[in-house]
């Protein structure tokens, strides 16, 4: 160990010459063990009680490498630093940069900021308040700024505006236009481009676009770049401090060894310690400065993010408050639409029924006409005899046709209105999600799962065209030969169908929500005693269950094999 603590003696120098006792700039012993293989005997030095500055002497030069010991020391220190920085995942700066930063005393020039990581731009830290108003520029525009705005606007459509006289955006409030005019030409042009792009968006989307601009990556990137740059500086300073601490510990250990062994040179090492402490104090001051700058940038970025968050949160809250009742309204509209479809289905069945009855009457009329013909009545007489009836039946057919047309028209109109309201509400439902997405898309580490609100009315069965082919045919020709006193309809009535349906459900173990009561259908306008053919009842039943919002899977299968045709 004592050999290891020997001061460095340059190669090629006579051993007897030893170390100049007054040379306090002799390289530190802990460095020697790295550079030198051969231990050098220690020459006692004169102990001085004063630690005044000694005249600097030329550094001894290593004959082997041609480097002075201080250079060797710097190289070793740089290697240690570079290793530490690499371990931290940061590419180390070049030796020259490191030397300028860590040992400004070696270099004449002022300490520049460390080299940033590739792709990282270190912004100069400014002390002035961030929102200091910019004085309006009188007269002609100044010369363009020498440095282009880096990534100020999104990459897509990042083209420069050729015009030099950028007018404030149209949707910028008048009180804000002067602020826009006060910007330098290039900034105005770039921000003008952003606003122009907003104008190209649908009006309901613009607020989202504006939020995107306010949350724009550039602003956040800029903050982040500044923070990262300053953090890198802090890391470098910390690594340097760590190196100093390590050196300090080694020197202290060496001093202790020297003292234990009674070797000379402890005071020289103490002087080195003193120098090291001064360097440390200087680095600490530098660190404080970098830390202050880092905190300022960090706070600024956080303040900006907080402001945007406040706006976004307020929008999201407002939308949440408004969208809930809106969804209720849209659901009510859908219910109204389902109810309308039920009404239409019931009316269609009634119309089919009335038409069938009219056809049966017509058959009776034809039968009577035939009897009259047989009894010798002329065609004219027959027409005259049945004229009143014919006219009524014709009127009935026309009335039904008119009603069908009118109901179809009204149904279409209501459908369109419901669709219009739904479409008008859609952008707002979408926007709420977009606000959340814009807010969450910041590079700041915020993990919030994107909620996807289910769009209302999706997956609903579209209105179906109601076929009339299934309507039970009229009684065959000549079915009624005599005067029918009371028409006997062999078809089951609604209450019979309802019982059958409920039994059918029970047999399939699917009764529950799909069960139907006669009274419920009566409320919907279907009489309990009304006679219906199976197809008509199934049509009404399907519309009624849909109106009741019974999940389709609970009755579709049962409905399929209920009252099979034939």
């Amino acid at each position, binding site marked *: 160990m004592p050999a290891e603590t020997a001061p460095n003696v340059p190669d090629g120098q006579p051993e007897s010459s030893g170390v100049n006792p007054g040379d306090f700039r002799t390289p530190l012993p802990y460095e020697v063990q790295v550079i030198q293989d051969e231990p050098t005997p220690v020459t006692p030095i004169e102990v001085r009680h004063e630690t005044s500055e000694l005249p600097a002497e030329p550094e001894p030069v290593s004959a082997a490498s041609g480097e002075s010991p201080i250079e060797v020391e710097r190289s070793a220190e740089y290697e240690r630093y570079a290793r530490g920085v690499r371990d931290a995942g940061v590419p180390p700066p070049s030796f020259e940069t490191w030397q300028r930063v860590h040992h400004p005393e070696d270099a004449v020039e002022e300490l520049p900021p460390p080299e940033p990581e590739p792709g990282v731009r270190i912004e100069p830290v400014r002390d002035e308040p961030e929102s200091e108003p910019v004085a309006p520029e009188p007269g002609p525009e100044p010369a363009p700024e020498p440095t282009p705005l880096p990534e100020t606007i999104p990459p897509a459509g990042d083209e420069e505006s050729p015009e030099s006289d950028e007018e404030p955006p149209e949707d910028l409030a008048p009180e804000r236009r002067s602020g826009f005019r006060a910007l330098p030409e290039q900034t105005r042009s770039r921000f003008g481009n952003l606003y122009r792009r907003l104008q190209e968006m649908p009006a309901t989307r613009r607020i989202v676009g504006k939020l995107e601009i306010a949350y724009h990556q550039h602003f956040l990137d800029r903050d982040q770049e500044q923070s990262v740059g300053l953090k890198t500086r802090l890391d470098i300073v910390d690594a340097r401090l760590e190196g100093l601490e390590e050196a300090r510990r080694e020197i202290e250990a060496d001093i202790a060894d020297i003292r234990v062994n009674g070797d000379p040179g402890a005071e020289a090492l103490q002087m080195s310690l003193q120098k090291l402490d001064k360097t440390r104090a200087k680095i600490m001051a530098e660190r404080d400065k970098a830390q202050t700058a880092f905190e300022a940038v960090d706070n600024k970025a956080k303040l*900006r993010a907080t402001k945007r968050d406040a706006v976004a949160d307020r929008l999201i809250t407002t939308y949440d408050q408004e969208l809930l009742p809106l969804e209720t309204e849209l659901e009510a*509209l859908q219910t109204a639409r389902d109810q309308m479809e039920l*009404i239409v289905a019931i009316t269609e069945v009634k119309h089919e029924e009335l038409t069938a009855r009219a056809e049966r*009457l017509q058959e009776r009329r034809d039968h009577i006409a035939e009897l009259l013909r047989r009894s010798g009545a002329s065609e004219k007489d027959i027409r005259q005899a049945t004229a009143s009836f014919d006219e009524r039946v014709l009127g009935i057919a026309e009335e039904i046709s008119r009603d069908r047309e009118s109901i179809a028209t009204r149904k279409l109109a209501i459908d369109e209105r419901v669709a219009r309201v739904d479409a008008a509400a859609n952008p707002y439902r979408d926007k709420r999600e977009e606000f959340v997405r814009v807010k969450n898309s910041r590079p700041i580490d915020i993990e919030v799962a994107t909620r996807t609100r289910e769009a209302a009315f999706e997956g609903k069965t579209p209105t179906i065209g109601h076929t009339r082919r299934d309507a039970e045919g009229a009684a065959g020709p000549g079915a009624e030969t005599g005067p*029918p006193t009371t028409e006997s309809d062999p078809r089951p009535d609604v209450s019979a169908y309802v019982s059958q349906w409920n039994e059918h459900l029970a047999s399939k173990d699917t009764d529950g929500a799909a069960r139907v009561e006669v009274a419920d259908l009566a409320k919907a306008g279907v009489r309990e005693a009304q006679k219906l053919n199976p197809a008509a009842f199934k049509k009404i039943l399907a519309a009624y269950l849909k109106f009741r919002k019974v999940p389709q899977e609970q009755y579709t299968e049962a409905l399929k094999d209920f009252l099979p045709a034939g």
Partner: protein
Amino acid sequence: MDNDQSSTNQPQTQAQIPAQVQADLDDLTQQAKQLEEEVKQTGADANRQLDEIDVQVSQAEARVKAATERMDTADKAASDELDDIILEEAQDSTKELG
């Protein structure tokens, strides 16, 4: 008008029509009359119910419109605030570039 014509014509043929057939004819006409009433009633019922749906839709439309207007108002206020933030950013960019 046609009704009137037919009733005018009817007496001329009445004598030639057997009583049973005439009774059938009268019953037929009566049933047609009843059917006519039912058709009218069915149409009236459907239209009345559709009127109710119309009212429901109108009310829902109005409420949805009011809600969207409130959201538009919130948008406008937020838009102005965002303009301020964007302008502030623009000024910052300018300052940082010197």
